[in-house]
């Protein structure tokens, strides 16, 4: 398994746990406010879990822009985490 694949799997697991959704529902188009359970409370849990899992400290712009799973990957890529 490549690093990119394992990062994607890891992020999918973080999303699945924070949003309480099965991992097969975590696709690039999964969107804040539209996906079941992805509300502001879940969003903050997600940010905390991503920081813990990837060793990041996401900034204001990252948190406000992270509106989909696809977008989350783009944001982590800025911190050198490859997908």
């Amino acid at each position: 398994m490549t690093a990119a694949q394992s990062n994607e799997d890891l992020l999918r697991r973080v999303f699945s746990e924070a949003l309480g959704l099965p991992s097969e529902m975590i696709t690039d188009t999964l969107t804040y406010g539209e996906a079941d359970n992805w509300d502001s409370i879940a969003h903050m849990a997600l940010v905390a879990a991503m920081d813990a899992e990837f060793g990041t400290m996401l900034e204001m712009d990252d948190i406000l822009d992270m509106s989909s799973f696809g977008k989350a990957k783009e944001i982590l890529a800025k911190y050198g985490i490859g997908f």
Partner: protein
Amino acid sequence: MRNTNACMPLPYWQLETHGNAPALVAESGLAVTYTELARLADRFSQHLDRQGRKSLVFIVCENAIECLSAYLGCLRSRHAALLLDGTIDRSALADLMEVYFPGFIWCREGAEAIKGQPVYRYGDYQLIRCTAVETEPIHPELALLLPTSGSTGGHKLVRLSYDNLAANAASIIGYLPIDDTECTITVLPMHYSYGLSVINTHLLAGARIVTTHASPVERRFWDLCRRDAITSLVGVPYTYDIYRRIGLERALPPTVRYLTQAGGRLAPDRVKDCAATLSRLGIRFYVMYGQTEATARMSYLPPDRVLEKPSSVGIPIPGGRFSISAGDRATVQTAGVVGELVYDGPNVCLGYADTREDLAKGDENRGRLLTGDLACFDEEGLLYIKGRLKRFIKLAGQRVALDDIERMLGESGVEAVCCGADERLYIAVRTNSDESAAARFVTSRLRLHPTMYSVVTVADVPRNTSGKVQYQALYEELSRHA
């Protein structure tokens, strides 16, 4: 003492007072003036009349002009309104309808299959005239019903009068700097007493309110704050977690003058951090305390004291008075004595409702509220909340009655004991299958995020010799392992 109407300003639902000043600003940027809002409210209420009888109207709320004008229409025409969470599930709504027999329901079109006839539409909302005829009368002074708990269902409601609503709004603008140059944005839902008090006070002052469904974790929310040059922002402890994590220095527009916090205890070090950050920005920070039973607010900490006394909830709002009920003694105001906090003021609700018949009741509290909170004063008379007598906690600012959760779990076949503290619910069960059933129930029915609760399988729940659950001991055990 309660007949202080003579010195009270006109109530906030006398919208015409502010003429063509903007009242509400939608996400689209469309502004609605006070005159227009009055007209929309009256257009709504003209469809409520049932041969001159006072009706009960359920309003399934969102922070939008459709629901604000319906709410104001009820107040102006002296029909009683129950404000409900816009995300309420159908079974909970059906339960409430069976208990309270509303004459009308205001909700999104197509959202609910409610028996009745649509009689008015505005935006994508419709007013449904219910099939069941209201027979039980409603007290003439009953203005508003608010749920006592957040998502735990239950049908216990707080009964608020016209005087309660007018008095609390007038008192709040007596200590918060709200005038007609102010502009705020909806952070909290309008069916929640704190959220509603923000709306009521701004209407009273002739200020502007930006209505949005966006939350502070969305860029759109902060874009609106900037576009409309908001001057204040509010939040419950959980909202302050968001503010802290994203950083208020960068997020707040320069037009902001003050922030308020209520809806549960924010840890003193958090209060201090936030106050220090805001003070560097020249922004005042008001820590406040209240309950739905007191319409919304009972106390505030003057912002110049917050760095020095971050664990205090301050002094009573204008027109209110606190005392401590300590054991068998009469109420006292002596420093250091811990007891149940008692509040006297014109904003104390009429009482509770559990049934439709209760809506006919008058004022049972007579201006005095036993808060169920344990508190004490310091030498200066500043108030500190020390704990709760009643078995409830606050999760994301919403009250959650622990006994209600136990009962609801029991009804779904799960034997459980609940305990907790603010921002954390613990559910103790005996078997692994109950553990997964309880978790499913809490996530789906109560819609609590997994970070807010733990379900733990325990061999035994600690009980005293008479078999009563020792909740404190259970809490200590479960929180130690969490």
